[in-house]
């Protein structure tokens, strides 16, 4: 079906499925088929932040004090996160928007992607502070084999869905030969690709960020790179919300609360969905090995990080009905929760409302002398 930016059919959006129904026409939010997406939009907007609000200038000094193996860990994680958010800043828009059929989900996806672009901009903010010219860091993202391997695995599900959608929208269902390659496009196949893609995105939001988050917060536990940690805390808060949204989509399908055909597909593709998740877990563990190849850091090593990935994976997989395949019962990094709790993220209300006047005005150098004339 050809895409139209304003569908002239007077359809009832309350009876449309989330995906592959009529294209959306009126962007209205007074009524919703799935209220949860409107609530997520509101929550996400309330989280708005700008990287420039966070003073990272002290990190430059800290960075010079890190050992070479720690520098490798820190920079590699930033590169990996830059990759993840480069993909997430565009892909949900390009893959999902052309096939979404309800306005609240359309706007949620746009809001979600927009926040990923804030994350991308914050990596530039962090790197520009550490290096006069961060070009070599960015350039390495498309050269580093470890990162490229992950990029290929994440983008393939998106690319597959996007290409099939393009064929469907231009040529419709049927067997099409493009540049000598034959493609069979059926609605069932399209929906299957969508299901697998959503599971791959869910796995990304669920665990792919957590190895790097753990390293960042392990530095912060030692009072190092705290500006960076503050930014990553804001990012982690957003990612938690994005994860909630993909869990909702997957569960709405599986429980037959949306498109009944998607419930069948969920059942049919359960094994593949599990495979996608377990693959992501394996890749994260390999990433931990790559990070610590030159030596570990205080408070963290490869083994404990791998256990943490398994622990998180158990929770995330059970949330979408995939059970708990790993035998890790208690949290190997309990201090992580302090950094992931929103109590420790929010700034004073006046700061979050009017932040512009604070830019660059925070003195991060405080010594004991500054409290000399304080009396209690």
């Amino acid at each position: 079906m050809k895409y139209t930016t304003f569908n002239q059919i007077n359809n009832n959006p309350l009876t449309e499925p989330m995906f592959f129904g009529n294209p959306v026409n009126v962007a209205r939010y007074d009524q919703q088929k799935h209220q949860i997406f409107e609530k997520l939009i509101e929550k996400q907007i309330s989280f708005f932040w700008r990287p420039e609000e966070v003073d990272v200038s002290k990190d430059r000094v800290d960075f010079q004090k890190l050992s070479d193996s720690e520098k490798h860990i820190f920079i590699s994680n930033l590169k990996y996160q830059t990759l993840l958010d480069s993909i997430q800043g565009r892909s949900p828009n390009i893959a999902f928007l052309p096939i979404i059929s309800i306005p609240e989900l359309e706007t949620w996806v746009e809001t979600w992607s927009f926040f990923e672009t804030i994350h991308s901009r914050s990596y530039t903010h962090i790197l520009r502070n550490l290096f006069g010219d961060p070009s070599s860091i960015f350039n390495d993202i498309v050269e580093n084999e470890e990162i490229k391997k992950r990029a290929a695995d994440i983008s393939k599900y998106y690319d597959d869905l996007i290409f099939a959608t393009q064929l469907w929208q231009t040529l419709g269902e049927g067997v099409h030969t493009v540049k000598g390659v034959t493609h069979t496009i059926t609605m069932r196949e399209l929906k299957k690709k969508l299901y697998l893609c959503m599971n791959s995105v869910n796995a990304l939001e669920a665990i792919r960020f957590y190895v790097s988050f753990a390293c960042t917060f392990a530095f912060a536990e030692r009072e190092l790179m705290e500006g960076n940690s503050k930014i990553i805390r804001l990012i982690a808060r957003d990612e938690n919300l994005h994860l909630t949204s993909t869990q909702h989509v997957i569960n709405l399908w599986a429980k037959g609360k949306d498109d009944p055909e998607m419930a069948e597909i969920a059942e049919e593709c359960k094994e593949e969905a599990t495979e996608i998740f377990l693959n992501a877990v394996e890749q994260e563990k390999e990433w931990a090995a790559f990070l610590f190849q030159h030596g570990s850091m205080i408070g963290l090593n490869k083994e404990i990080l791998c256990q943490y990935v398994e622990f998180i994976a158990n929770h995330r997989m059970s949330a979408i009905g995939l059970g708990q395949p790993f035998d890790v019962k208690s949290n190997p990094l309990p201090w992580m929760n302090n950094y992931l709790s929103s109590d420790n993220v929010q700034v004073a209300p006046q700061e979050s409302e009017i932040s512009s006047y604070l830019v660059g005005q925070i003195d991060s150098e405080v010594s004991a002398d500054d409290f000399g004339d304080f009396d209690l």
Partner: protein
Amino acid sequence: MVDIKHHKTVQHQPNKSLLETIEVHNIEIQYHCREGYCGACRTKLLKGEVEYKTDPLAFIDDNEILPCCCFPLSSIEIEID
């Protein structure tokens, strides 16, 4: 009273969320956001009723609750994953 399967039965603390009550009794429970949007503390409700002061945004199944933002309305029995 809050009966936590495989652990013990504890007294709910007035004005505290269920999560805070569980923590006061040193029972390990996973949490992240503590505001109902991440779902990390998802727990099975086996018996009893709870209420929410803020709308939980995270996905929870019909037999599940989010201890971080819920308050027991009666004696309850729960099972922590």
